[in-house]
Every structure is written in structure tokens, then in C-alpha cells.
């Protein structure tokens, strides 16, 4: 059972080195809140941090050392929103990822948000389009899921409440952190390039409609940057 008093539970999951910890740190606006590294196994156990109305949950990478799948599945079941992180540099979904998604049985599909990370390493619109397209095809083929034109998870009546996905969020945390040291036009351009504010706004929207800790105001991007 999800305990809503603790906050809107956002669980980041995905295979190792898919940028989960870096994404959550960026969402929280705190460098190194969730430590990350270049080799698998940096996040060895589930880590939880309350940030504004959210309870951010970082999980060990699937397919990493020590078979963390059962633990991760437990967290996914408790999640209000699952951020499935996938590195753009790794191409399409791997068999291991498809197997893990199958284990989740997509019961959480309407609250799963696919985030394509490392979009800025290097930025390549063609690559983003090809990988997104291929991943959408994989999800449609394996699970019958389709992108929701409405842009919200599970809200499209034409497709069905549990069969539609929010379009993939494409994020790059390097540009986001660089924006800290810039101002004005440069900061705006870097923030837009990072994709983080867009994802934050979406999570804020979900948390606001959700009801828990309604007294806690979602942190604005400007506050985080300040």
C-alpha cells in the first residue's frame, strides 16, 4: 500500500548506468543527492529522499550486481509514478529491460513514465527520434502500449485507460547543472536543452492533483537554481 502522507512517491528505475541517480539529483536540484558513477553498482540499495511534495526513491540498477529485481519490483508497486530511465546512448530497450517490464506486467503502465537520459551526450535529434521510435515500437509490440497524444499517462479515452503512455521525456543533466552557473538567455537555453524543467512541471502537476502533503509547495525550478 502506498502511504500518501509521506509524499508523492516518484521511483526511478531502469538498468544499470541509465542515469537514474543523476536524474533524481537533478529533479531535486541538489548535486550528488543520489550518488552516481560510471560503473554499475553505485546505487547498491534503495535510497529515499523527501523533496518538496515528492518522495524521490532511487533504486539499484536492474541487471546489476546482486539481482536487485525483487526489491525494485517492491518499490515499483508502492510508487505513485515510476520513472523508467533508459540511456539514449544504449539504443533501444534491451532484452533484460523488456523482461523486467514484463515482470512489472505493466500493471503500473499508467503511472510509468519513460525518460530517455543522456540526451546531451552528445545531443543528436536524429538519434533521439530513432531511439524513441524504436522503443515505442518495442513497447507496442511487446505490451500493446501506445503513445498518448494527450501527453498524459492513461488519460486518453481513445486508446484506453491502461494502454497509453506519455511521450518519452528526453533529459540531459549536464546542461541542467551548467545552467546553475549561467544567467539570462544562456540559462534559459541550457534549461530548455536539459528537459528537466519540463519533467518537473509534469511531476508537480501529478503531485498537486494527488492530494498528499498538499501544504508542501512544489519547489520551483527558479528556487532550485537559486
Amino acid at each position, binding site marked *: 500500500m502506498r502511504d500518501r502522507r509521506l509524499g508523492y512517491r516518484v521511483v526511478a528505475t531502469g538498468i544499470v*548506468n541509465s542515469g537514474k541517480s543523476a536524474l533524481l539529483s537533478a529533479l531535486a536540484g541538489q548535486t550528488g543527492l543520489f550518488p552516481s558513477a560510471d560503473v554499475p553498482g553505485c546505487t547498491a540499495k534503495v535510497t529515499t529522499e523527501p523533496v518538496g511534495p515528492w518522495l524521490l526513491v532511487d533504486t539499484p540498477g536492474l541487471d546489476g550486481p546482486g539481482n536487485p529485481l525483487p526489491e525494485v519490483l517492491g518499490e515499483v508497486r508502492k510508487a505513485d509514478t515510476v520513472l523508467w530511465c533508459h540511456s539514449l*546512448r544504449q539504443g*533501444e530497450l534491451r532484452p533484460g529491460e523488456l523482461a523486467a517490464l514484463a515482470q512489472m506486467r505493466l500493471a503500473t503502465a499508467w503511472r510509468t513514465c519513460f525518460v530517455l537520459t543522456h540526451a546531451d551526450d552528445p545531443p*543528436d535529434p536524429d538519434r533521439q527520434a530513432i531511439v524513441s521510435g524504436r522503443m515505442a515500437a518495442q513497447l507496442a509490440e511487446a505490451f500493446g502500449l501506445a503513445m498518448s497524444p494527450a501527453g498524459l499517462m492513461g488519460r486518453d479515452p481513445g486508446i484506453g485507460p491502461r494502454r497509453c503512455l506519455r511521450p518519452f521525456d528526453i533529459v540531459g543533466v549536464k546542461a541542467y547543472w551548467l545552467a546553475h552557473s549561467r544567467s539570462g538567455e544562456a540559462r534559459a537555453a541550457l534549461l530548455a536543452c536539459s528537459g528537466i524543467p519540463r519533467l518537473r512541471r509534469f511531476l508537480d502537476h501529478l503531485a498537486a492533483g494527488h492530494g498528499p502533503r498538499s501544504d508542501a509547495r512544489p519547489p520551483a525550478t527558479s528556487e532550485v537554481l537559486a
Partner: protein
Amino acid sequence: MMSTSVPGMAPAAWSRWVDTLAHFEAATAGGAAGKAQRRLLESRVRKLRTELAGTASPGLPKGTPHGLEAKLRELIGGLRAGQARLVDDVAAALEDIEQAAENEDRLVVLVFGEVNAGKTALALHMAGWDFDVPRRGRLFCGPDLDCARRLVEFPVEATREYQGFRLPGLLWIDCPGVSSCTAENARLARRLVSRADLILFVTSSDAPFKPSEMAELARLVRAGGSPDLAGLLVITQFDEALPDYDPATRKVTWSLVRKGSYEQQAAWALESLREAGLAHLVADRPPLAVSTHLARETLGLEWTTGKPLRVPAAGWEPAYAASGIPALCAALDEIVKTRGRELKASWPQKREAALSARLEDTFGGSLAALAQIGAQLDKLARDLDLAGERAAQEASERAAGRVAPCLGGNGIYRGDFDAKTARRELADHLRRRVDEAVRRHAGRVLDSNLRSLDRELAAYDATIRLEIDLQRKTRTIRRTSTTRGRAVGGATGAAAGTLAGAWAGAEGGAALGTLFLPGLGTAIGGILGGLLGAVFGGAGGRAVGRWAGAQVQETQVVEVPAGSNAADVVDKATRKVGKAAGRLVRERFALLKGSVVIPLQREVKALADTVEGWLATFGTPHRAAGSRRAS
């Protein structure tokens, strides 16, 4: 498409490597290295192919115990499946040998790693397609043996065919990604491993060796190659893009730099290889970190497509070194120089070892299982012998015990004996007792599958020839006797002997007594002598009289009553029926053994011989042990 970024120039390390390869080709031209071994391997593989063409499908005789039958059928099914797999493997090995013959003056390098690890980009760069040089590698892709265009680099899985490039002295195979989503690609990857002289284990620095990737890699190396392949560990995509904002163009810009986490990633990659049991393949060579994007950036090419963008900066080569490509070229150069010939020469042994291991994996277990079944059959034969003895004993006792009541019931003691009915009843009884005993005792040994043998066993004749020689009526017979002559002769002889002995003894005793004491001595001597003479004379006379009387024969007339030999007949019939029951049971057990156990033993032995024949193709010591077990 040809890049023009470095007109007429290529990195020095790459050029040196290409020169070394050309020398290597010249030195190994004619393929002396490993040619004889390759031919030997080919002949052995062809022999194995011939042997595998035979079927491993023994017929199981009727009456095979259920448990054993299930086990044997499972084993035979496994053997057939293994046979089919091996036929494919053998065909693949022959293809490999053919390919090895074509490439006997080239080092075959296989690039092996996960999907999207940058293998194709590395192949293009190493083929010299990012340099403007006349002797760049000839690309091939599937049936197109000389591609005029670059191989496809794509952000999602793109390599679906056998592709790579050739340089003088080198065949570089760009393997489809391990952990591919398509089974066909995984199969192709496994197939290609067995052709390599050298494997480059490639892992992306974005997600260096994951446990599942390593497990898959280890499985493929075990399945397709030999455990002692030569390898080199390469970390690809070792770069990161750093963003910045350009106020002039009002755009976010990016610069590519080499990652700073080499130590961390190298340690992780080596540890992963070690855990997968593959560390020995890369020996003590440190992992090489390369970035084709960085190399292209230095050469003024577009990172992902290799399209020329600008003229490279002057003195580009030191900056190019940061891509790690020169270090990779130097490492390959050294391997070609120091181990090239050895790697080529050892390929047949490695291929043979791989095929031998495959044979072992496929059939080693079957041979052990066959040995177990052989032992089980030996025990079955022993159990059947013991059960046969017990059944014979039981049938004999029970059949014999019924003879007397049966004959008595049919009037053997009453004089109205019905021999025909008695004989039929006894035969029926005998058949039933034999059947019962065989079914009960054999059924315990041969499961409940005995029923399937009933038809064959029912044809067996279970009757006996019981001759009953019974005295049917009273009759008079004549016979000669010496009984009376002996009696009369004995009595007469005894009387005469007693009298003569008493007289002679008395006379002698009196004469003797007189010598010592006349008067009284005479009387005492006479009395004692008379007594002794009577005793000895009577015995002697009787013996003489019996002998004399026996010389006289007398003819008698005797009356024999009907049925007087019934007891004898019953005894005789009882013995005969008991014996017959025992014999019949033993015969039927021998029939069972001959129709079930012995053919099974023969089939299992033949099967074990066949499998051993397969295993012995490459003659490793295991076979002899297997052979002993099976026999």
C-alpha cells in the same frame, strides 16, 4: 563515400599496424602454419559427420520394464536431439575449416560485445574509412563481398549480417551484438566466435560489462569457441560531450572530451571478466579505452557519421592519441608481430577442442546414463535369475501338492480310476501353477509390463506326458522262490551240527581232562567240551544247511489285487509333476530373459558403442572411462 579530412595521411600507429599485417600476410603466404593440423581436423570432422549420419534408434523389445523404458526413451530422445545439434555443429565446423583455409594468411579478428557498443564504428575506423588512404580495408556485408559504401552505423541495433573488412593479413569480423533482441543475431554471434584467432571483447563505457552481459558472453565463448581463445579487452565510447552556450550563435554547443574514469572502468571490466571466468583470455593486458567519436572529431569529421566537416587542425596527431585508437593499433600490432603465427597455427587445435567440448557436453552425460542403464540391466538379469529359481521352487511345490488329491479324486484307490480326466486335470493344474508363479515372480522384476508378453508366452506348450501305469484288475501270477529250501536246510543243518558238535566236544574234553586229573577231570572236561561243541557245531550246521537249501527252487502261484500299486503311482506322478513345473518355470524365465533383458543389453551396448565412437573422434581420455562404465 570517402572522407577527405586528412588527404593522403593516416595516423602513424594505424599505418604501422597495416604494414605489419602486410608483412604477416607475406610471411604466412602458402599457409604453412597449421595447414597439416587443419587437414587432420577436417578429416576427423568428416569422419564424425559420417558416423553421426547413422541413427541412434534402438528398438526396445516387448516387455521392457516401464521405468526402464521411459528412461531409455528419454535418453534416446536426448541422443537424437544431440545428434541433430551435432550435425549442425559439424557442418559449421566444416564451414569454419573452409573459411580458415581461405584466410590462412590472414589473422581473423572478431569484435564481440553488446548491441550499440560501437563495434561498427570501430570497424569502419580501423578499416581506414575515416582516413584518406589508398589501402583502406575492403568492407564486406553479407553477400556483398566488396561494399562500395560504409557499413551502417545506427543508434539502434543495425548489424544483422556477417560484416567487417579485409586488409592484407587481416579479416576483421564485426559481430552482431550480444544480448541482441533477435535470436538469429545471437546464433550468428555464436557461430562467428569459432572462427576467430583473436577476439576483441568490446564494452561501452556508458554501461561497462553488466553481469547478464558477461554471463551471455561466457556462454557464447564456451559454446562457440575454445576456452583458450586469445582476447583483448576494449572499452569503447570512452568520451563525453560537455555543453556550453555560444552567445554569438545563441545556441548550446558541445565539445567532446575523453572521459576521466579510466581506472574505475578498467578495474570494473577486468573484475567482470574475472567473475565470468574469461580473464585469462586477455592475460595481463590492461583494457584499452577508445572513442571513435573523439578520433573523428580530431580528424574534422562528423562524430556519428564520419562525414567531413572541416580540415583538421595542424598537428592533429597528438590530439588524436586521446581517442585511444593509436594505443589499440599498437596493441594489435604487437600481437600480430609476437603471436600472429602462433595464433594462426593453433586455430585447428582450438577448433578441435571446441568441437570436442561440444561433443562432451552433448554426449558425455548420455554415456554416463547408458552406463547406469547397463548396470541396471545387469541387476535385472540377476534379479530375473533369482526370481526364476524362487518361482520354480514355488511352482514345483504347489503343483506336486495337488497330484495326490487329483488322482485320489479320480478314483485311483477305488479301482474305477479315470486316467484321461486325471491327466487333463493335472496338465491344467500344472499350467495354472506355472503361469501363476511366472507372473508373480517375473512381474515383480519386470514391472507390470509382463502383460504385453502374454501373447508370446501363451503359445508355449505347458503340458507334460504323464504315464500312469496303474494295476487295473486282480490277477494270478507264477513265481519261483528259494525261501522254503533255505528254512528247511537251515533247521536240518543246525540240528545235525549240534549233535555232532556235542559228541565230538565231549569226547575231546574228556580226553583232555583225563591228562590233568583222571576221574573228576574226565567228567568236567567231557561236559564243557560237549557244550562248546554243541554251540559251534549248531551254527556251522545251520549255515551249511541254508546254503544247501537255497539250491532248491520252488514255483509258486500268487494273486495280485487291483490297485495295489496306487501309492507307487501317486508318488511317481507327484515327483514327475513337481519336476515338470520347475522345469517349465525355468524355461519360461529363460524365455523372458532371452526376449527382454538380453536384447535390451545388446541394444544398450550397441548404443554406448555408437556414442563412444562419436566421442572418440577426437580421442580424449574420458572415452575409455565411459567405455568401461558402459560395458
